[in-house]
């Protein structure tokens, strides 16, 4: 298969499937609460609606207000394309692409915060401040997890670094990455994607003033990011690349579904944390990623 067809197919897969995940989470939450809930495809309808709308612009905002969401979305999608998909591998790969992935995510975060600051609103400045301060701790967790995989596999290319860890290490890494996933994607207990209370929001408050297509890009980018973390988590923990192509892809899809349902269950059954305690839980997430690293090192020597 020529490279460009491979890339287009992967792109379509990411763009079209990602908005399914928030829909599944909402369905799980509704189901636990005994409600009917919005349709699983709700985010698709929302995106279509937002895409047709015009944009409301603040007189204070510079063009950065529009550019930032576009750059953020592109960065997240580019990061997603770097990620191998179980037996199907990655479209292209090079040494150190994992660092590029981390930087793409950081760029996306920077742009979201930039877009938020453009409005000059006290709310959004507050949200941006929260987002970047918590991100510092969340990024340490991701980097540690990546380091664990690098030490284990001896490779710094994404396509070859997802090798199974020994049992306990994999379990610890799974917990750590799951906590990081919740934080990075603004889910309960770190943030509440469904709240209407602007004073308590982190991610949501940064995008309060966005509308129309830029808002659609932000929402879609968030869905892609969620899928990216789910797939990363599944591959970091399960030895998927050793299975035959079809089975491994099916197993990957199954684990992504499982992780999504788990996110929904966490949201249904726990309250969100007070901001003061967020760093504590993020540190716990970091430690869960650190112990497998130590285990791997001990195993090496």
């Amino acid at each position: 298969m020529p490279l460009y067809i491979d890339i287009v197919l992967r792109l379509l897969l990411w763009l079209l499937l990602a908005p399914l995940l928030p829909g599944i989470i909402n369905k799980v939450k509704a189901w636990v609460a005994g409600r009917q809930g919005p349709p699983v495809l709700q985010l698709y309808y929302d995106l279509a609606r937002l895409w047709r709308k015009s944009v409301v612009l603040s007189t204070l905002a510079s063009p950065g207000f529009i550019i930032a969401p576009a750059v953020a979305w592109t960065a997240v999608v580019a990061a997603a394309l770097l990620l191998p998909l179980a037996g199907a591998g990655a479209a292209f790969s090079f040494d150190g692409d994992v660092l590029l992935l981390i930087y793409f995510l950081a760029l996306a975060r920077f742009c979201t915060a930039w877009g938020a600051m453009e409005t000059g609103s006290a709310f959004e400045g507050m949200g941006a401040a929260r987002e970047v301060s918590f991100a510092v701790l969340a990024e340490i967790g991701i980097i540690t997890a990546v380091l664990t995989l690098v030490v284990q596999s001896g490779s710094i290319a994404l396509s070859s670094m997802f090798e199974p860890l020994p049992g306990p290490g994999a379990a610890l890494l799974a917990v750590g990455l799951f906590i990081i996933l919740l934080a990075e994607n603004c889910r309960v207990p770190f943030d509440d994607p469904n709240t209407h209370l602007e004073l308590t929001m982190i991610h949501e408050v940064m995008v309060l003033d966005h509308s129309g297509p830029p808002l659609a890009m932000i929402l879609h980018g968030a869905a892609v990011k969620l899928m990216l973390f789910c797939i990363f988590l599944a591959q970091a923990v399960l030895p998927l690349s050793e299975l035959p192509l079809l089975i491994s892809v099916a197993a990957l899809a199954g684990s992504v579904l499982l992780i999504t349902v788990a996110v929904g269950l966490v949201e249904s059954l726990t309250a969100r944390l007070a901001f003061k305690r967020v760093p504590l839980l993020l540190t716990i997430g970091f430690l869960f990623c650190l112990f497998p690293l130590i285990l791997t090192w001990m195993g090496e020597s």
Partner: protein
Amino acid sequence: MNTLAPFFLLTNASRISWASVPVFSVTKLVRLTSEMLQSGARLCSWFGVPDQDGTILVAVLALDAESILGVARSEPVSGSYPSLTPAHPQAHLFEREVWEQHGLVPVGHPWLKPVRHTCDNAPANAPFFRVDGGEVHEVAVGPVHAGVIEPGHFRFQCAGEDVLHLEIALGYQHRGIEEALAGGPHPATMHQMETIAGDTTIAHATAYASVLEALGGAEVPLRAQWLRAIALELERLANHTGDMGALALDVAFLPTSAACGKIRGDFLNLTALLCGNRFGRGLIRPGGCMHDLEEKRLLTLIEKLKTHMGDVEQAMAWFWDAASVRVRFRNVGVVYPSQATDIGLVGPAARACGLVRDVRFDHPAGWHRFSQTPVAVWPSGDIFARARVRSLEIQRSGRYLFEQLEAPVDGEIQTPVPAPLPESMAVALVEGWRGEVCHVALTDHYGRLRRYKITDPSFHNWTGLALALRGTAISDFPICNKSFNLSYCGFDL
């Protein structure tokens, strides 16, 4: 009781003649009131009555320990008078209100600005208290809010995530209810009373009916008093349940929030079963009640109440069993007991600071003279305590309702009320679900209403919310706000 001597003492929901209210010079009234407040009395109301030669100030105090109320008034004054507020912060809004309505300046008041004027001289247009400093930033919230709630403006002075000071500017819903009552009661008055605060319909309607009955000298039949007590507890159940659900929602704890939304509706439907309206409108009228609870509906009510109490108990168990929920409320939004006393908190907010303050217990009137329920108190003053008190009151209101419903009283539900006696004054306190609802009426020499003063519990408690926010993270404002759940329109009148 010697210190009480200067004030005229009366019991809740009773009438005195205007002439027998002791008159002092305004300086002496302020001094005497100050002494009374010092010795443990509470300011229920402080208002002006326009007169030919100026404005007469009237003080209504509650002496909870003695289960008695005290009233006194000043000679007509104009211009200014020495402020009570520096010594007794609980008077601060009352004095601002008197200044706004009658132009009397309380000399020494530290923060004199409008309470509920609209347009140019609205509270939100007056200068706000500001904290200076490089790290300090100001956050303005409202009057239009994210949820479907009433309008109010909140101005936070923050250092990072922590709130140093919160100032609340209301008045957006001022409808002129007190002004409309002058010369009344009018045909529309009863309906206006029922909508002072829509969620406190029963409490306000009961207070108004009690005032008119006291002014006319009528004693309501026991069965009507019994019905009013039942409606009052149903109102409490519905609102406390709704607020517990809202607290759960604000910390994203879905099980309780989803259940409580539904159970609140169930309790409202019980009120509808009683009188045909979910908020109890049209049930209470001066002289009694408009709807009786005959045998068949009584049994249905008991049956349904049993089911709903079981449901709410389950929802509360989920709430209190979840460590992630409890930790969100502990030591957040603390109001210290000394602060609560100083600013005159009432209702569950006061009881959550360990103050035993409940009109049903301290100043029983109507059915509560015969049957009472234990006062629910929790000492810590934080959101946890306010939620705990609400939760306890849900249990106790339920138990009280079962006791009352199983022993109905027979008799009429209405009695004719004679026209109000001229030159009289009546005071009625009712413990609504938010706290003490205080109505004071004054008649002229034709027996029409000369002045009618309404004090919703929110009037006392908004200051409590502002204090609770000091040193609290701004992200915890919504849960603090929900734990008080004060009324905007009850304040704005």
